[in-house]
């Protein structure tokens, strides 16, 4: 079955690469932040902006405030890394990393950025490493938003074909969990397909 030019083989490969990348991320977080957790099996789907907005609304609770960190990455495989963590989880994260009872807003923001850094660096780096291509990370930005309106109404109207790779991260002991979205669009989908094709050729050569 094909999904916008992606065959089942492509999707299986991407899922496999993501599993490796996520394992890498979990290990790094355990090592660097001393937090032991797990990541759910990644969901991979191809959608438009409206579908993305709808998917985010289904995934993220509307009844809470969320820290949303967005980080762009560039290269043959480029796109946007999105990490969404509830205000409560972010507070636990700040508490864990800064080892203070009441972390300041600045502490929490820095903690969220730090976790995002590790997640994006490990997941995207590993993914691009597996695909034999280089990646450049751009400065992330974090904002605290009410509910799950991550995409503005104007942007929902834009037409883009998007690959959504999403997973959930949980650290039970620290009571921290968050959602990760890796988004790439239009031309990059072809680029990613070409990279996966090359990887498949390598493996089955």
């Amino acid at each position, binding site marked *: 079955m094909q999904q916008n030019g992606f065959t089942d083989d492509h999707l299986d490969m991407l899922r496999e690469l993501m599993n490796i990348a996520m394992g890498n991320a979990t290990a*790094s977080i355990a*090592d*660097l*932040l001393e937090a032991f957790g797990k990541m759910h099996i990644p969901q991979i789907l191809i959608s438009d902006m409206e579908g993305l907005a709808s998917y985010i609304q289904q995934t993220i609770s509307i009844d809470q405030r969320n820290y949303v960190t967005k980080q762009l990455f560039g290269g043959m495989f480029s796109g946007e890394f999105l990490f969404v963590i509830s205000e409560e989880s972010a507070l636990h994260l700040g508490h864990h*990393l*800064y080892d203070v009872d009441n972390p300041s*807003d*600045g502490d929490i*923001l*820095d903690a*969220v*950025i*730090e976790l995002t*850094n*590790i997640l994006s*660096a*490990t997941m995207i*780096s590993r993914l691009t490493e597996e695909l034999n291509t280089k990646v450049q*990370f751009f*400065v*992330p*930005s*974090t*904002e605290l938003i009410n509910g799950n309106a991550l995409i503005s109404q104007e942007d929902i109207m834009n037409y883009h074909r998007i690959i959504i790779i999403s997973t959930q991260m949980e650290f039970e002991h620290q009571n921290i969990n968050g959602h990760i979205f890796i988004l790439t669009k239009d031309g990059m989908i072809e680029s990613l397909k070409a990279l996966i094709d090359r990887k498949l050729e390598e493996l089955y050569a």
Partner: protein
Amino acid sequence: MVTIPYPNVLLDALEIGVMIIDENFEVRYWNQWLEINTSHLASEMIGKNLHDFYPQIDYKVLARKIRTTLRLESPTFYDASVQNRFIEIPRTKITTSLLMNMQLQVTISPYIVEDGLVMVSIYDISDLHELKLTLQSQMKKISELNSELHRDKMIIDANLLIVKMDEECKIIEATAAFLDFFGYQPESVIGNYLPRIFGEVSVDFDTIQICDAIARHQKSSGEVKAILASGEEVWFDTVVTPLNDDESDTVSYTVIFHDISDKKRIELLSITDPLTKLFNRHKFNEVFENMVLRRHWDEHRTFGLIIADVDHFKRVNDTFGHQSGDRVLIEVAHIFSQTIRTGDILARWGGEEFVCLLPDVDREKALYVAEKLRLAVEQLHFPDVGTITSSFGVTIFASGDTQESMMHRADLSLYKAKENGRNRVEYL
């Protein structure tokens, strides 16, 4: 690949701060940008610990970031939205004082991983941050203004009778107060024509002047009277205002209806005789004065003045009491009102005396009206008083006349009518 022979020159030429430190925060490189902006020379920094110069940095966090950078061989970042989480660098901008210190964006990149060295790049994003702060401040102001506007709109909606109309006099919007006042449902008003709407509830509402103003694309105001279906008489001061779009083309009109019924009632009381409901002497004098001052009267086009007096009225009062006397005056006023023409001005002058101005009459016509009034009174019959009569003095405006001269002649005529036996009309 070309090897760059003088990397220091390149790093010094950058418009960012660059330092190289190890995992223990020992400074290995300090570029020119940092020398200039921190006032610490490379010679005094290199080989020293960053902590000696910047003790305020959270070194636990910095250590963790350096470790992450080295372990992942990927850059890590400080949050750029919080001021001075790294080092403080004073800002020299004079023209604005939003930021005293530079807003920094700090990236820690792996340099020589095996030696535990990282490169810390410091970007001055103060201008960007300043713009963000200005924008936030403006947005806050806009939000406050919007709240005020919303509050004002709610007050207007609840209290003012306003409709917005298109060029065809079709209603686009109506306030809740308007709907409530006239007892309309929004669906019956929006998209409907104003004359049709008022036709349903008002038996007497002149929307012509409103629709005329709209047809002429002009601002206009005026007073209109409406008699509601309930029979209640309501007066409105209406203001029609064209609303222009950016290109100055009129796209819609607002009509504000201000209920001035109370004002009208007070106004009416001040010019009305309480017993007979005719104009009082004050209002009569005002109209009389205006009429005399008009310059267009001549021998062919003039106006008349009648003074009427109920004969032996004192006797009526003394014999049958003041209540009967009042009833006589009310009936006389009523029969006079029924008898005069539209446009004639009738008033109670005082006591049992009435005055009437007759525009555009000559002597004969004035005498004819006075005679009609006399006959009308003569035919009245009161159960207790029986019949009554009245006497009339008539005069016509002549060139050079004043209010006083005309009143004087009319008075003399009335006196003559009384002298000649009452219940008659005399002219002077």
